[in-house]
């Protein structure tokens, strides 16, 4: 990666223009998240030919297809497992996973905790819109309590996951969170995650205006993304031990950054030592 910050970011340089306009609903925050990812990629000077974007199923899973890079639209909940194989086999690639709250925390929850634990150099962007949008608006592990969805007609009674605390507890060496409203800050968090050697988990608070917002009377996209911004408070993360799940007020920015050995590097070092030992033996 090129350390020097490059200027003149033109998102069109990183899009498959023949695929545009993209299929996402008007006001969907996933587009803003995509911009911030590509912006960070641009500023870090990542070679598009060596950028691999792995996504799962759902609205978030479709985001990768618009990126002019090596894009893999895999199975539901499994992008982290696919990315694990890809990164181990091809450490020269910059591997980014784009996943959603359902994809990452429900069906793919097991892969997430083990990816955090393993600490392979993958950047995981979880686009959290609190709902299963693609299938018509069912409750997800991050749906706020009391919210209406097509499968919680009387209001959601299930507590809400705090994905960042989950990732932290599972040992992720980098955890970050940002809202789409703060696009430059989101770009910076993604950039820090990409530059971090190890597993970087980044939760992007996105909005599902068409389905979730409408059903819960949360206003149009501008109101929704502003509300997410005002949900950010500096005190919530890390001292909310009494709350079992997700606190109402969330902290944004880089929440955790710890120095842990990157799994791929450790594996390759041990393998090289093993080969050297075998060679010495003749």
């Amino acid at each position, binding site marked *: 990666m090129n350390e020097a910050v490059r200027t003149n970011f033109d998102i069109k340089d990183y899009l498959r223009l023949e695929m545009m306009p993209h299929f996402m609903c008007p006001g969907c925050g996933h587009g803003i998240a995509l911009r911030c990812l590509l912006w960070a990629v641009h500023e870090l000077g990542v070679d598009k030919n*060596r950028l691999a974007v792995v996504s799962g199923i759902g609205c978030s899973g479709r985001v990768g297809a618009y990126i002019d890079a090596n894009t893999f639209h*895999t199975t539901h909940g499994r992008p982290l497992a696919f990315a694990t*194989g890809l990164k181990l086999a091809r450490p020269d690639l910059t591997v980014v996973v784009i996943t959603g709250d359902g994809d990452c925390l429900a069906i793919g929850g097991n892969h997430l905790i083990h990816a955090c634990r393993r600490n392979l150099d993958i950047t995981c962007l979880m686009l959290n819109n609190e709902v299963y949008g693609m299938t018509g608006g069912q409750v997800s592990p991050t749906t706020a309590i009391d919210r209406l969805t097509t499968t919680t007609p009387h209001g959601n009674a299930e507590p809400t996951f705090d994905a960042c605390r989950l990732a932290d507890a599972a040992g992720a060496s980098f955890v970050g969170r940002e809202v789409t409203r703060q696009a430059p800050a989101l770009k910076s968090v993604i950039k820090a995650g990409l530059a971090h050697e190890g597993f970087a988990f980044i939760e992007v608070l996105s909005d599902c205006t068409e389905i979730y917002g409408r059903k819960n009377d949360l206003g149009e996209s501008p109101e929704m993304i502003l509300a997410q911004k005002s949900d950010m408070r500096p005190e919530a993360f890390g001292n909310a031990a009494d709350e079992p799940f997700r606190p109402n007020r969330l902290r944004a920015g880089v929440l955790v950054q710890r120095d842990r050995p990157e799994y791929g590097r450790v594996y390759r070092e041990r393998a090289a030592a093993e080969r050297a030992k075998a060679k010495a033996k003749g």
Partner: protein
Amino acid sequence: MTPSLAALHGNRACALAAIAAGCRFFAGYPITPSSEIAEQLSRELPRVDGVFIQMEDEIGSLAAVIGASLGGVKVMTATSGPGFSLMQENLGYAAMTETPCVIVNVMRGGPSTGMPTRPSQGDIMQARWGTHGDHPIVVLAPASVQEIYDETIRAFNLAEEFRTPVIVAYDETIAHLLESVVIPQRRTVATVTRKFARGDEQGFQPYAETEDLVPPMARPGDGHRVHVTGLTHMADGFPTQKPDLAARATRRLLDKIEQNRDRIERTETFEVEDAEVLIVAVGIVARAARRAAQDLRSAGARAGLFRPVTLWPFPEQALIEAAAKARHVLVAEMNAGQLALEVERILGRGRVARLNRIDGEPIPPADIARSIREIAA
């Protein structure tokens, strides 16, 4: 330079063959009776600059394997019944995205947890139809440790040549059988590597209808920057729901196997030329059947054996030829009747009889011989 002779367990032979075939990535999850393959490869792969990883489950194992293969590496996983069930989702993904991979399924007693340490041939139909939708699949069923070695190498070659998942299915008995194996010199092993896309980055069609129906694969880093999706996709790799394009895409997937049957099918026959009684069996049962056929011949009966080494696509024409003179056909298998369904489909139900065993024990030659005598009487 002569080939070496080694006494190997089936699972060990499988692991060594994978290395010889060029396998450089393995992801798996511990499960009896396949775990020795993972254990062996966790030692072997680092020595050849390959990667072994134990994943969190079998779903993730096959996902990681496919991910590595998408990176351009030869890959394998190994499992058994319950794990194989979990792999069906991503097996379909590998078929749809035409990602070469080898899946070893050491069959054990089922359903569910069943009898983990007992042999079975209960996954013959799951191997063919386990994942949803019409999909191409190649299944190889070795019957000896030597054949595990040879067929594992062939599995890699077929997977690479046809860009498709290939399953190597054998039962627990052979997995843990110790036999002498001729290990060829590494350089004499014929290996196939998939075609990679070269040049022409602009307008490259990753799923184009090439003459051999197997398009070259774009490798990340080479400049093609393609999209890979499990959605039904067009030649350019992007999803489509247009009926004509969707039909064409799925048709090509099926045709690339169907039209290359002669390259994929492999069978073994024993005394079929004049056989009036034909035994059809795979794997360890075929070894008992061969003995049964020999015994019957000694007793004056014209018995023969037809053994599909390639289980799927089923060697239909070879079976018809082998059964040309047979008045009776006996399908002997360690399940409640799976291979029999295919044999009956091809030869008609009239002359096909079944011998099944579902108690976790192999079928001995005497049982097969007795069945034949009963049918012929």
